């Protein structure tokens, strides 16, 4: 690794005692403010204190869960909605969610104000960039129809939106984004937008995203290490929640490729989302988790029905 922290971790790995446990943490995509707590735990030495030697890697697109499942990494990050496919397939991936990074679903529909999409029903007749997940489209259909719109008249464009600002200037009228990054970017660019959070449109959609997942086998065999890891991560996120500006600097130091202003602004917004109204960081509420998966079962959006409490556990988070 060449970024400052990663170099440090390499160096410490060599020096530290042999009994420090090596752990690989795979992110959901490029490093961003969702991951700040992990970088804080690394920088502030929380992992080292817990006797852990953690390396953080950037994964292939959509590949984090595969990597954790195959044992290529012990822990990773994914989202409750995309995990549904992994849990419900004929050969389910051996992973389990162990902590929520953000308490609420901060994602929503964004569009330019002049398009007038100030409620989901008004999406009718406009274009929307879809990544072609059946769950995604069902969610969208639900909120559009609940608001009296005709979903069949929403123009779906299959695409992975790389640049939200450019996309909104091009022929894409609305995009599903995470406010903490892309929404902040739009604000920074001075765009006047309408943002409709899914959690507001239908409480069922206040599911967990993103979450930390672990390899089942590994966690079963190393419960103590898992607990130690999660508590260090938790400490990191608690620090980030309390010191947004410092935490942003730590992230920037670790990942200097990121845009400084964007990270600062985004951190400011996200620091309030890490713990929010929960008793502690990482808490997954069984009702909300099951509520969403139940809705998937009812709407036949999964190959095999998901069981009650499937896919998550709070056993390792103290």
């Amino acid at each position, binding site marked *: 690794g060449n970024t400052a922290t990663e170099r440090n971790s390499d160096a410490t790995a060599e020096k530290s005692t042999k009994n420090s446990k090596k752990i690989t943490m795979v992110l959901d995509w490029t490093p961003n403010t969702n991951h700040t707590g992990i970088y804080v735990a690394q920088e502030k030495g929380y992992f080292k204190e817990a006797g852990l030697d953690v390396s953080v890697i950037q994964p292939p697109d*959509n590949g984090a869960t*595969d990597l954790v*499942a*195959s044992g290529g990494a012990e822990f990773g990050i994914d989202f409750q909605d*995309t995990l549904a*496919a*992994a849990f419900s*397939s004929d*050969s389910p*991936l051996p992973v389990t969610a162990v902590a929520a990074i953000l308490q609420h679903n901060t994602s929503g529909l964004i569009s330019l104000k002049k398009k007038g999409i100030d409620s989901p029903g008004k999406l009718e007749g406009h274009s929307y*960039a879809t*990544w*072609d*997940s059946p769950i995604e489209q069902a969610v969208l259909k639900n909120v559009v129809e609940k608001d009296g719109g005709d979903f069949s008249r929403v123009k*779906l*464009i*299959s*695409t*992975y*939106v*790389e*640049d939200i600002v*450019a*996309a909104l200037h*091009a*022929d*894409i009228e609305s995009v599903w984004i995470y406010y903490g990054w892309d929404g902040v970017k739009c604000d920074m660019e001075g765009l006047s937008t309408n943002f409709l959070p899914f959690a507001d449109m239908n409480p069922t959609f206040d599911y967990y995203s993103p979450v930390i997942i672990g390899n089942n086998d590994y966690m079963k065999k190393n419960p103590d290490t898992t607990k130690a890891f999660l508590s260090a991560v938790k400490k990191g996120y608690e620090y980030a929640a309390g010191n947004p500006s410092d935490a942003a600097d730590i992230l920037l130091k670790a990942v200097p490729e990121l845009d400084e202003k964007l990270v600062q602004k985004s951190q400011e917004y996200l620091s309030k989302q890490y713990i929010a109204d929960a008793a502690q960081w990482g808490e997954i509420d069984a009702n909300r988790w099951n509520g969403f998966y139940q809705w998937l079962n009812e709407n036949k959006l999964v190959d095999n029905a998901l069981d009650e409490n499937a896919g998550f556990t709070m056993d390792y988070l103290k």
Partner: protein
Amino acid sequence: MKRKLQSITNALIPASAVILLLIIWQVLCLAGVLPGYMLPSPWQVVQAFVKDFPLMAGHMWTTLFEAFAGLGIGIVMGFVVAFLMQRFHALYRAFYPILVITQTIPTLAIAPLLVLWLGYNTAPKITLVVIMTFFPITVGLLDGFKEADPDAVRLLQAMGASKTQIFFHIMLPSGLGHFFAGLRMSVSYAVVGAVVAEWLGGFSGLGVYMTRVKKSYAYDRMFAVIFLITAISILLMKLVDIVQYFVMPWKRDDRSKTKMEEYK
């Protein structure tokens, strides 16, 4: 008769090598050495292929349209630019080095920008295919022109031919061999380019299909579509060979290649 038999055994040997590999792969999968979520077995892939073929076929037409449109534009542009650069030496000296350098730019890296600039329709896909095919075709043609026998040029000059006549009677036919070599590469680039551009968004196409099946962890269908893309590339390359056979009749029996046979 003897030759026909030989050409059949010639095809049989690699085919049986492939089949052997597939059998080993299947056995490893059945034995559980390779877990299903890492690598589907060949039989699963075949099943996925058969089951999904109607769906894939629909996507295939989109991709083929993009590939052919891009390739067509690339070829026409390539011919025009190569003609102009051959005809006007100043253009050649100004742009040939740039052309060569442009080929080293990682085209895929600018694919996302193309989507941003041109939207989500077929335009950015066709543009990417044009970019990926135009350069090899143009450079191929220009290199082919260089192969032209200077004595043939002198012959026509001595006959008082104009530069344009020299181009059509000497340069162009001399460049065709290189052109077809470039084209054979380009058809495969065109298909892969269209697929990669579709990864970045679109309504249909094999690339769109690929991202969808990948997102749903359906690796058997993923392999099936990779197989389809490969098959399309090979078929198109064969097509180029057939076109070349008709366009360059003088290359048909290159006897010299078989001359060594007796000695082996």
